[in-house]
């Protein structure tokens, strides 16, 4: 039972989330009050996110089980929340420049409001340490994202995207809750800490534990679009407004990976301390292999199918599936090095993936198309944009001297250090395949239509500045990456209590 001092401390540690709730309400009310101003809710959302960020920063070094173990406040959660927060901020800025959204609606109040709602859901998900809390948090973020995916609701493909998203999402969360019910039956508890204790003392039948674990994984796998729960990804990424596509590919994946790692470490790890060693898992099931198989399937399918794509959003959708595969590789080693690699990778992935999507958005604003052929001769039509896009693509492919290379380096070294050489080899082979389709875009930009007299594309200085603000760090962190690595190493310990 929760006592009052615990409650007061919990509420004081809940400030970032409280800020988001207040922002949600304010954005909604002020949007109705100021009918003339189109982006008022967006400005409020930015202000709210900045304040939430300050509160989040104040929690540095805090490890606490809040709200009677429903929520864990720790540095791992703080890191992931910063990723979510940063990408929400960047996406709101992107949305100011989206023709697609502004043509469809005269006002975007609900849009910014729902982004804040989704951020709130992801903050909860990152910290949840109770299966019911995880379910509530996943649904909070899902319900906002279903609506956001179909935000341009008169556009056929957007409404189709939201239908597919909601159907697949509802089914996978239904299967997840069935898995949770089985785990509850095995252990008599919904709390990850108590489940952990029960599993370490009692011998639990393997088959139902495996079954419930797989069913719960289907809910997480859906969020990170891991094969075989990826069916929705290409269609939803192509149909949704490009800002939302970018958002789903970064923030929602970050929250999914955070809950996946926390579920395994808090729920299924033997609490014998052994920090840099592989986590001892409970219950006779080798989850390393389950996750490793998922990782191999995910990256291979993502990369192979991406080769055939001609629509940029679809191509980046498959590429994001492949990146989920690389990240799953780091999860599958299940030690703190793996966690640190996931954290490092996510910082760089956020920069390069959001950058690539913003370029796609800018091109679509001008040319009203996302076809890969529209990028022909871009190197001559808009040199700055093409150079930035090249940086993002090289970084996504994981070549030096970009930050993507450093991210991959840490992922692969964590895999090799744990002795999964075969997994690392499959990962490297996949990176080679991915080079093909990233290089295809670069070739289109510089080697196609060189002679053509197509008009120059002129973009406003503000948008170019935003692209540069994402491209320069993508390059810079490729050379000077120590601060990120140190931050990740500081944050890699998931708090498991005492």
């Amino acid at each position, binding site marked *: 039972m929760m006592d009052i001092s615990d409650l007061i401390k919990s509420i004081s540690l809940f400030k970032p989330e409280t800020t988001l709730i207040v922002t949600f309400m304010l954005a909604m009310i002020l949007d109705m009050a100021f009918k003339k101003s189109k982006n008022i809710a967006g400005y409020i959302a930015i202000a709210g996110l900045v304040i939430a960020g300050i509160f989040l920063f104040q929690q540095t070094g805090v490890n606490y089980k809040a709200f009677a173990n429903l929520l864990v406040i720790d540095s791992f959660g703080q890191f992931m929340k910063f990723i979510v927060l940063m990408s929400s901020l960047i996406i709101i800025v992107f949305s100011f420049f989206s023709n697609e959204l502004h043509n469809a609606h005269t006002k975007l109040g609900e849009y910014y409001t729902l982004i804040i709602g989704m951020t709130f859901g992801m903050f909860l998900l990152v910290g949840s340490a109770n299966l019911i809390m995880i379910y509530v948090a996943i649904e909070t973020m899902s319900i906002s994202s*279903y609506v956001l995916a179909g935000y341009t609701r008169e556009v056929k493909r957007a409404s*189709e995207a939201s239908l597919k998203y909601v159907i697949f999402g509802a089914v996978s969360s239904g299967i997840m809750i*069935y898995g949770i*019910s089985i785990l509850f039956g095995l252990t008599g508890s919904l709390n990850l800490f108590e489940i952990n204790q029960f599993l370490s003392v009692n011998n639990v039948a393997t088959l139902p534990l495996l079954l419930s674990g797989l069913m719960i994984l289907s809910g997480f796998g859906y969020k990170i679009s891991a094969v075989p729960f990826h069916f929705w990804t290409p269609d939803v990424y*192509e149909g949704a407004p490009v800002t939302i596509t970018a958002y789903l590919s970064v923030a929602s994946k970050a929250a999914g990976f955070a809950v996946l790692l926390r579920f395994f470490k808090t729920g299924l790890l033997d609490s014998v301390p052994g920090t840099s060693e592989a986590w001892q898992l409970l219950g006779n099931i080798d989850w390393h292999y389950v996750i490793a198989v998922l990782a191999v399937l995910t990256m291979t399918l993502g990369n192979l199918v991406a080769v055939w794509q001609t629509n940029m959003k679809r191509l980046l959708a498959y590429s994001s599936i492949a990146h989920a595969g690389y990240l799953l590789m780091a999860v599958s080693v299940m030690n703190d090095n793996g966690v640190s690699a996931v954290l490092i990778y996510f910082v760089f992935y956020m920069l390069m993936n959001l950058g690539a999507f913003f370029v796609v958005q800018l091109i679509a604003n001008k040319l009203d198309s996302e076809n890969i052929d529209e990028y022909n001769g871009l190197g001559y039509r808009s040199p700055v944009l093409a150079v930035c896009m090249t940086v993002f693509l090289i970084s996504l492919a994981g070549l030096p001297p970009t930050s993507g290379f450093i991210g991959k380096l840490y992922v692969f070294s964590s895999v090799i250090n744990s002795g999964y050489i075969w997994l690392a080899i499959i990962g490297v082979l996949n990176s080679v395949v991915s080079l093909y389709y990233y290089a295809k875009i670069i070739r289109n930009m510089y080697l196609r239509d060189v002679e053509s007299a197509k008009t120059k594309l002129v973009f406003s200085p503000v948008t170019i500045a935003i692209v540069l603000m994402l491209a320069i760090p993508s390059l810079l962190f490729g050379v000077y990456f120590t601060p990120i690595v140190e931050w990740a190493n500081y944050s890699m310990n998931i708090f498991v209590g005492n």
Partner: protein
Amino acid sequence: MEIGLTHYLVISAILFSLGLYGIITRKHAIMVLMGLELVLNAANINFIAFARYGGMNIEGHIAAIFVIILAAAEAAIALAIVLNIYQNFRHVNIDEVDDLKG
């Protein structure tokens, strides 16, 4: 034979499988949602049965209540989206809503 935990679990297993069958075979979006409701109810039977035989553990009841709340929210959103699809496509058959391909 006295009615025990296993009886309820078997009912739940059958209901879960029926729901899955509905989800896989139905084309009509609302029919898929009905299949989903069966799956959620199967999970709820599990929660309540485990709660009853696990020492009247109230956590199972709490879980079931949250499942019902979220099912309502999800159904509301899903039906709003289905209505929107109907306005755009004049039907709601999932496999015929396929402008996106590749």
